[in-house]
């Protein structure tokens, strides 16, 4: 047990929700913004015990809180964090003040509701990353859909209705079978508690179907190729803060789901499906990169680049070695920082030019040197330039891939090259392109500096000194890798034809 005087995680989940109620008593848009910023900073302060109390060497769940919720069904209120979720929780909380800052002048309508959605989002996201009960996880998982839907549908661009509907339908349809899988785990394992389910070894035929049901929900959320089509639409239409949260936090939920559920609960099936998952990950990397290369809307470039980057993450996860897992988790964090930063930059330039087309924003370097500096930094990080955070993550995935099978590594190389190509292409045009009209846009103001400096510092800090992040995640990842390998071994796979066994078991499942 931790020696913290109060339940840290519960506070982190519910403080934004409780504070959000205060919004309804406020009048005046600036007051609302300032209040939300204050709340987000308090939330950040409230996470302080996490940093002081987290035991780096331990792979166990920490800050655990556990009590009955619906006793008759064994549903519990069960929170905890380990090295895998810790970084995600911190990322979620850290992104909130940046979101408030970057939408300060961008959002002019229904300001109160907007900030309510932001706070609600944060609460649900922290909940997703800390829930250790399957039902509780599902509750938070779905609860975050509504504010995200509203963020896109109400404050989004011209195609917002289409984009928001697509986002909602895709993700909710994906999780429809997740609920069935959760129930199946409860019946097969006797509990909804994730740590206890991890201890058990389910039959391969069960794992096979459970893996598919879980993976569908997570693959849509990541999004993996070919389930990605909601993402560019949602990203392009969402307001800046929406894109930032979407990129930084929401997409991570999918990969987090793979790490937290698929690998430990269905290890044998994960091993069985790994080649397939790796194949579609590589397809995603290449596809995302190539499509991004041809886009003229800057936001679309970054949106498609996300498909590629998240492909690296899923690839790392299904490599099943320590380097791959480390790289995957690292990339989850890095993508949050870098792509979040890039979306904030796009928001900043959009406020000046009211266009996201590359052609309307040519030659920014002349007028906005500071802007170009940040853009350059994030762009370098985005394609994994040495010294930046993404380099560390990408190289780990590469090493993991080559360890596993040189062919996988070889197939990834073009993906990394394409990433450099599209990023350099738009950076070049933004910096030195010939402007179509005379622009006298002011360079970054203090507010913009304040929200760009934070990710910029992390880009360099993690890039140059990644040691601390390794320390946080290593113990948990080592245990995960060991558990998965052992789990896969214990659940002896039918050597001849596992698929046939699984399909035969289908009769048993749906009898």
């Amino acid at each position: 047990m931790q020696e913290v005087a109060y339940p840290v995680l519960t506070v982190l989940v519910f403080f934004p929700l409780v504070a959000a109620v205060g919004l309804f008593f406020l009048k005046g848009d600036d007051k609302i913004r300032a209040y939300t910023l204050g709340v987000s900073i308090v939330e950040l302060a409230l996470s302080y015990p996490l940093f002081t109390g987290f035991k780096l060497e331990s792979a166990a769940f920490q800050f655990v809180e556990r009590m009955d919720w619906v006793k008759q069904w064994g549903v519990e209120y069960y929170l905890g964090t380990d090295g895998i979720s810790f970084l995600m929780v911190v990322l979620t909380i850290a992104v909130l003040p940046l979101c408030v800052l970057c939408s300060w002048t961008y959002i002019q309508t229904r300001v109160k509701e907007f900030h309510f959605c932001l706070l609600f989002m944060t609460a649900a996201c922290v909940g997703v990353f800390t829930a250790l009960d399957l039902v509780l996880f599902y509750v938070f998982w779905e609860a975050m859909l509504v504010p995200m839907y509203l963020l896109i549908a109400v404050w989004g661009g011209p195609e917002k209705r289409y984009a928001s509907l697509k986002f909602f339908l895709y993700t909710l349809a994906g999780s429809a079978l997740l609920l069935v899988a959760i129930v199946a785990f409860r019946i097969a394992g006797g509990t909804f508690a994730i740590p206890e389910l991890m201890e058990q070894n389910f039959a391969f035929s069960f794992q096979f179907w459970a893996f598919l049901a879980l993976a569908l929900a997570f693959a849509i959320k990541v999004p993996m190729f070919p389930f990605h089509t909601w993402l560019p639409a949602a990203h392009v239409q969402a307001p800046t803060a929406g894109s930032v949260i979407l990129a930084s936090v929401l997409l991570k939920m999918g990969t987090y789901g793979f790490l937290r559920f698929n690998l430990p609960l269905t290890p044998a099936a994960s091993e069985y499906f790994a080649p397939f998952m790796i194949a579609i990950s590589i397809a995603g990397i290449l596809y995302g990169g190539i499509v991004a290369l041809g886009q003229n809307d800057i936001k679309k470039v970054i949106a498609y680049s996300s498909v590629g980057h998240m492909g690296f993450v899923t690839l790392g996860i299904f490599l099943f070695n320590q380097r791959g897992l480390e790289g995957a988790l690292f990339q989850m964090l890095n993508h949050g920082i870098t792509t979040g930063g890039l979306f904030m930059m796009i928001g900043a330039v959009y406020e000046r030019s009211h266009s996201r087309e590359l052609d309307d924003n040519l030659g920014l370097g002349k007028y906005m040197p500071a802007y170009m500096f940040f853009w350059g930094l994030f762009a370098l990080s985005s394609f994994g330039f040495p010294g930046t955070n993404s380099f560390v993550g990408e190289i780990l995935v590469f090493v993991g891939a080559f360890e596993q099978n040189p062919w996988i590594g070889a197939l990834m190389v073009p993906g990394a090259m394409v990433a450099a190509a599209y990023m350099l292409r738009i950076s070049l045009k933004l910096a030195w392109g010939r402007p179509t009209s005379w622009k006298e846009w002011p360079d970054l103001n203090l507010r913009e500096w304040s929200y760009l400096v934070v990710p910029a510092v992390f880009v360099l800090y993690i890039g140059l000194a990644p040691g601390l992040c390794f320390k946080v995640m290593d113990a948990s990842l080592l245990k995960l890798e060991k558990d998965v390998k052992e789990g896969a071994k214990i659940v002896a796979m039918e050597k001849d034809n596992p698929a046939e066994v699984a399909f035969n078991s289908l009769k048993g499942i749906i009898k």
Partner: protein
Amino acid sequence: MNPYPFMPELSMFLIIALLFVQAVGSEKMRHKVGVWLPVASLLPIAVSLFSLGQEGLFFHGAYQVDPLSQFFKVAIAIGFSVTVFNATRQPTLVNEKRSDYFLFLAISGWGLMMLASSVELITMYLALELSSYALYAIIALRAKDRGAAEAAIKYIMFGAVSTAVALYGFSYILAGMHTTYLADLVQKTWTFSAAPMAVTGMALFLLGMFYKLALFPFHFWCPDVYEGASNETAAFVATLPKLGAVVILIRLAAMFKPGYDITTVIAVLGALSMTFGNLAALVQRDVKRILGYSSVAHAGYIMIGLISGTVQGLAAAAFYALAYVAMNLTCFWVVSRVSVDGRNLQLDDLNGLHKRAPALAFALAVGSFALVGLPPMAGFMGKLFLFSSGWNHGYNWLIIIAGINTAISIYYYLGMVRHAYTKDAVEGVPLPDTSAFSFTGAVLLSMLVLGLGMMPAGVFDFALKVGSVVP
């Protein structure tokens, strides 16, 4: 005889008596009905809550007061009260028929309460008819709307046919099993090979219940009747009779052992019902028709609890029925408040609701997301209970179909929220009712739906007792 076990029925009867006096009384008295009745309708809630613990067997074993009946009596009392509050401002009802209208509503509620306690087939039949006849009369009461007359005729015709078939089936059961008492009937073997006549009869008898529940393929009346009846009447017809049907099905469920032919029939009907209901709802534009088809789908979900044949399954079905009533009443509350002139709401009429009446828009969002089964609303917990109770009892395919159906249903439920939140209002449409009355109702109902979802433990505890009364 000790009157305490019958207090909910008696309190309801008291209301009926007062309404009767008012209905036959002078012209002046009739205007007062909207004043005293809503307050008086709280009495059955209090009384039925108070008599939750009552138990006993009466009238030669035909009438049983047990946790099952008491649970549903509370639900019926709450539903009755909400629909009465909802109907007090009914714009399409002429003043001189006001007390008659409420009289029929009360009689129907009273019949449903008795249905909850019936444990003998003839008693059940009588109670069912009592609750139905009252509804036949009031569906037509909608100003001079021709659609209402059509709806009423449809409801009567379908009702009459299904009752006739049920009665016919009942004669088969009597012939095959030589008893009409459920307690005796559950002891028998309900396989087709052992008792072909009785199984056929039971299937026919169930048809009557399926009609009330609007389960596929006995649902044809449902969307048309909702569309034709006034919004307030539809709110009643869509919710309370379902409770009556579920309570009977729970009582009969002891006969549905997994593996019995009759259970498989019910499972197949459930699967068809949810699939058909959801698919048909996708293309509707009329909000009441959407809710009509959604109720066809929800009848299918409830079947999951019934076929598992366990205490948990029956408890889950009871819980889901309660949740369903709460979510649906929330949606109908919004429909009735938005349609201030009593017209049928189209989806476009909901446009811009969040600006015109934020509380109603919020309640609509809560109600529709609950119907989807999105946490933390009541519908999610209900579905979780249903799925958990049904898994591994031989009908897993039904649960997978239910999961897929949930995904289908998202589109049209979200459609209602989408219109309310993301579209701008059309000019010239009458403004929704934003009075304190409308606000309070919307807030209370959304709190009920959210509360059932977030803290279901207490209610479910009682639902477990409900499930365990069945042998």
